[in-house]
């Protein structure tokens, strides 16, 4: 039963990151709507967001939350709808987590760097 604790905490992390993502997605969408209505160009957006430490922190939190939330959900789907056991999904989860972190931080750091 040593894994019961890990499984419970994994579920908890997924719930907490889900709550964080709810806020992050709303902020992200609100900013998009605001930016589009203001008629700013992508160059102007990069000018405002790029090099900004608060936006760097915000999108870093966003990426980490996705990287923790999505693999846990994906694992549940795989376990419920394929014959894969929990142990077999460890590597799939780890790979998905790393891919999200790599892609996400590539974009976040890239955007920050454009304005720095």
């Amino acid at each position, binding site marked *: 039963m040593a894994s019961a*604790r890990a499984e*419970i905490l994994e579920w908890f992390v997924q719930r907490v990151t889900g709550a964080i993502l709810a806020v992050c997605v709303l902020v992200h969408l609100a900013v998009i709507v605001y930016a589009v209505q203001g008629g700013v160009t992508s160059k102007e957006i990069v000018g405002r967001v790029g090099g900004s430490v608060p936006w760097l922190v915000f999108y870093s939190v966003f990426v980490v939350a996705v990287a923790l939330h999505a693999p846990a959900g994906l694992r549940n789907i795989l376990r419920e709808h394929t014959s894969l056991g929990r142990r077999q999904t460890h590597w799939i989860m780890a790979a998905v987590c790393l891919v999200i972190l790599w892609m996400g931080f590539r974009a976040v750091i890239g955007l920050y760097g454009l304005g720095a």
Partner: protein
Amino acid sequence: MSEQTITVDIWRGKEEGGFQTFQVPRLASQTVLDIVTYVQRNLDPGLSYRFACRVGVCGSCAMTVNGKPRWTCRTHVDKVAPETGSGGKLTIQPLKNLPVIRDLAVDMTEFFEKWTRAGGQFVPTKTRNDDFAEVSPNDPARKQASAGIECINCGVCYSACDTVAWLGDYLGPAALNRAWTLVNDARDGGQKARLQAVGGSSGCQSCHSHQSCHELCPKHLNPTASIAGLKRATVKAALKGDI
């Protein structure tokens, strides 16, 4: 006066099998169990099914009626197959998510094994020489326990649960509901082992809160709420390092 009849399709066989159609006299205040009993006593004595009390206490007569699991002794034909509407036709199958022994009788072994695996046994902390424990009926924990205590283990929730269908090792709503009543029992001494047993991917954390168990429970219990309570209790214990 000509006798009114109802068309009844009944599952015959095991996992492999087919429906057999019967015409059964339609009577006032007739239950689905009355229908099955009529078929077995008058039309086909080889029909296998299970029942005992006939008054909604023993929990042994649950079957799938027109696609939904129900306790057949307290399910009126007029309610599930009104003469207008569905054409007054009944389709009766064994419970889902459990192996079929024959016809309408399922093997409940797995259901009760999971009940045991979830720590469904009361673990006493006192002996017969001690005084009675004083538990106020207004105590919040006791209220939580009392809300789920009337389960008759009919298996309706287990049969209705999508997660049970998807995950073979998932404990299911009845076992988890039972565990929740004991988690809230101040007299019980088996909490650590119980929370360990009900936590994790084969336990409460896998519940999707679809609430089919709540919707179809013949005793109007809410196993989804009990499972939500277990989710909170297991997380709290895991964060504290108790389990």
